[in-house]
């Protein structure tokens, strides 16, 4: 009797693993590859092949805002998932100072890492040190922000900022039926991602001659600035404003200013929980596209592939989700808005793939 039970249990277990294992293995396919105009540039990594277990070093730019906090946890999650192959895992934090990060990388090399995962504080500053790391035979994996030259890294795990700006603007323009006045709220003047998203947005505008930009202002990715600036713009343009293009934290502040003025217009943002929840609660037509924190975990997976000598794409676009309260012709929501907006999460939480014990709250 005991024996049969054991056999049945074992059989069931075997069956479930056979059925579910491939499902667990199947990673979400990076959708953005589909529209890549050229063949993926695969990197031959055989020269980096090594026997494990490995020492992995992660040089982080900073954990001074909530996106970066989640992102750092995701990298750690990547390490915990692969503990069997990684014997040591080192993290450094540059406090947003490129100078310090150059030193950080040197420190990690001094500790004898087999692979360097690098989230660069600025793309130019870290380029020389990344290039020299590669020359020493240690593969560099860039994540979130890259370094300038192509030969300074093996693989770059990211989501396109330009694509983000385009998607947000396309949805907004289509929501307005190709006619109307909008204001644009950007990030920090002079920072790379802010300019890329802006240029993406403006590219789309060229196809919509009747969508007029009333004003473009930088809101420093700060909800306070977003609210202050939007208040002034409401005074200048009033009910002429038909839509708001924004690429980050500032839009949650801007939305509040609009609500206080009793105006409800389409607005774009990213997967900051405060933005998602408020748009839903206050009934703003909204669209959100994320710059996924999960790329942190992907970077560890890619790093291990490189160390095993498997080919990896030079540029690895992580899959991203789009949600909108209302579909337009070309931008459709991937899931209902309510599934992305979590009322029980803190305001500054980001959509993530972390297990409970790694969540920062």
């Amino acid at each position, binding site marked *: 009797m005991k024996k049969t039970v054991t056999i049945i249990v074992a059989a069931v277990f075997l069956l479930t693993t056979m059925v579910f294992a491939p499902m667990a293995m199947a990673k979400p396919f990076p959708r953005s590859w589909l529209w890549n105009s050229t063949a993926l540039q695969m990197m031959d990594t055989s020269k980096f092949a090594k026997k494990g277990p490995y020492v992995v070093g992660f040089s982080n730019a900073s954990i001074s805002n909530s996106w970066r906090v989640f992102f750092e946890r995701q990298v750690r999650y990547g390490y915990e998932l692969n503990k069997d192959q990684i014997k040591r895992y080192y993290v450094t934090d540059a406090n947003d100072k490129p100078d310090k990060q150059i030193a950080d990388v040197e420190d990690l090399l001094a500790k004898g890492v087999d692979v360097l995962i690098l989230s660069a504080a600025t793309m130019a500053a870290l380029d020389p040190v990344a290039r020299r790391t590669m020359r020493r035979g240690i593969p560099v994996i860039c994540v979130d922000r890259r370094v300038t030259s192509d030969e300074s890294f093996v693989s770059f795990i990211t989501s396109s900022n330009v694509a983000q700006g385009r998607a947000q603007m396309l949805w907004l323009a289509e929501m307005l039926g190709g006619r109307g006045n909008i204001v644009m709220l950007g990030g920090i003047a002079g920072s790379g991602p802010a300019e890329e998203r802006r240029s993406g947005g403006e590219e789309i505008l060229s196809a919509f001659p009747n969508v007029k930009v009333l004003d*473009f202002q930088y809101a420093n990715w700060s909800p306070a600035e977003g609210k202050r600036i939007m208040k002034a713009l409401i005074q200048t343009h009033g009910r002429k404003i038909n839509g708001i293009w924004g690429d980050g934290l500032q839009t949650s502040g801007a939305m*509040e200013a609009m609500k206080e003025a009793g105006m409800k217009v389409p607005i774009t943002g990213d997967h900051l929980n405060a933005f998602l929840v408020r748009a839903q609660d206050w009934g703003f037509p909204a669209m959100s596209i994320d710059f996924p924190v999960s790329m942190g975990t992907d970077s560890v997976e890619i790093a291990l592939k490189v160390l095993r000598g498997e080919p990896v794409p030079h540029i690895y676009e992580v899959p991203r989700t789009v949600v909108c309260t209302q579909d337009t012709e070309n931008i459709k929501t991937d899931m209902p808005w309510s599934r992305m907006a979590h009322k029980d999460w803190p305001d500054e939480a980001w959509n993530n793939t972390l297990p409970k014990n790694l969540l920062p709250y």
Partner: protein
Amino acid sequence: MQVAVSKRLQRSPQHIRSLFERFGIYIFLAILIVTASLVSPNFLKPQNLKDILNQSAALGMVAIGQTFVILIGGGGLDLSVASVMSTVAVIMAHNTEGQNSLFIPVMGVCLLFGIIVGFINGTLITKRKVQPFMATLGMMIIVQGIRFLYTKGMPKGEFPPIQRYLATGDIGSVPTSIISLAVMVIIALFVLRKTTFGRKVYAIGGNVNTARLCGYNIDFTIISVYMISGFMASIAGLYLAGWIGISDNWVGKGYELDSIAAVVMGGTTFEGGRGGVLGTIVGVLIVMMLYNIVLLLGMPVQMQFVVKGVVIILATSFYASFRRTQT
């Protein structure tokens, strides 16, 4: 050109000069308001003026504290205010979770926190002879570290509705935040002008040695002044956080330099002993109006930077030159 103006004034009667010295900042404010309303028809809209006032509240409160600190002289200034503002904001959101009933007790904790930071600042400056710039800069960095350790970089919670009302609501058509600011200005004016404590502040700022000879307790006064600054910073932090409504790690960012600029534009000098709260409030209004008008005009960000810089320099040098001729 400034020199030419002051030369001419040197020959003019004494009282005109002192009039300028005294009211230079008000004249400048008037010029700014007239210019603003000429270049942008939207500037004088009641709602816009209300927005400016509402946004001035938090900066005004920090600047009141900053005025005390700068008045005391000896290079006094408080760079830790912005850090304190952000920290009390996350403490509030974290602990109340948006419940009105917890607002008062948690507010007590927040105010205490500000006072303690001020106490440490003041003690370092008086007992250990650390220069105010260094002491408050060090505290700024430490408090920032404490805040991130506390939140793990991820602020949570919500602000209680009562706090949001205090920061964004109206009584009649007057914003509540402005009423609060007015009350604080009156208290500060009273303290500085009518109490012995205020006299001590001016005396120490004017000349430490004379004040010491008068038997004033210098260290105690200086420590108190920094405690006032910490206290005002935490109130301002709560108002600002209530106005934004999102608990963010960097709520008060930039307020340390903005508040110092406002105080100095308002006529309080780093040498200490001269100036006061009313000038500071005018300085605050100038700063906030400036931030507003560049947006109303839809200026690109580059021009905003240039205009802000030029106006700060102009406003301060506008009457500094009159003041100089007097000494």
